[in-house]
């Protein structure tokens, strides 16, 4: 699965940072635009791009961007 598009969409439209800013170790809470609407937007793009249904609580439990990507990957592999 190509996550590049997801990352790009996440950077531009969810947390609104410049392309290439995010790393797997980036702490989500430190991003200025990481708020409750960002959580809903994340669910929307995961659904639109991969057909994956993420839970609000699941997303909020992620500390880093990498953990969030892992959640999406887990859902995709049916874990």
């Amino acid at each position, binding site marked *: 699965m190509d996550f590049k598009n997801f990352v790009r969409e996440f950077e531009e*439209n969810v947390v609104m940072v410049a392309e290439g800013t995010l790393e797997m170790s980036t702490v989500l809470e430190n991003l200025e635009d990481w708020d*409750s609407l960002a*959580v*809903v*937007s994340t*669910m*929307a793009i995961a659904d639109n791009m991969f057909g994956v249904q993420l*839970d*609000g*609580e699941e997303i909020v439990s992620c500390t880093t961007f990498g953990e969030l990507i892992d959640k999406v990957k887990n859902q995709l592999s049916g874990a």
Partner: protein
Amino acid sequence: MQDPFSLSDKTILLTGASSGIGKQIAETLSKQGARLILVGRHQDTLDETKGYLNVNLNQNHIVENFDLEHVDEIPGWMKEIVSKHNVNIDGIVHSAGIQTTSPIRTMKISEIEKMMSLNLYSGLALLKGLSNKKVNSSGGSFVFISSIMGVVGQPGIVGYSASKGAINSAVKSSALELARHGIRVNSICPGFIPTKMMDQWSKLVTLEKRKETENQYPLGFGTPTDVAYAAVYLLSEAARWVTGTSMVIDGGYSCQ
């Protein structure tokens, strides 16, 4: 003296009766003696709702299968059913509606279009149908089920707010235009009512956020019955002098 809230001589067309607020409205209107025309896409769920209704007053409720997405066909279809069942439609409650939570940063106009179509356009088409003398010739009452989110705002629901706010504005102009035909037009603006439509919202937000929201309601969350009673009032003779208004039923949410 006749009960001013009785609907016993009225035929009311109701959309969205398969579930949620609409289903409760069907039950409550039926108890008040109304004869109902239940409209929806799914024959089986409509039949189920009809099965629940109190028929002690021999109302002989009607079920009509119709997809409100076919907006342009609505007025013509209304003339057909009036002729088919030999009735005069005295009132309409447009309770069918959808709500999607979609932050601006990722929203799609096509999603908003779906909400506008069902929440607003189909309601306006029903209103057009009601204004036709073949459908209603003795005056009537149109009730839109709007939302408190058409009066106040909330992040994440721009499209939904737009559709409900549009209803509240449409109510004013249409009330003025149809007054001389004896048709009153109003909307009900409910606050948060836990129903299947709101399950999506409940899944999207954290438990903390849900509790926070409930605390913003001085009288707690509402029930479908709270809305149904308002619909009874607006449809009845008791509201003969009420038109062009958006009735807020929200447990005190918007007065803060």
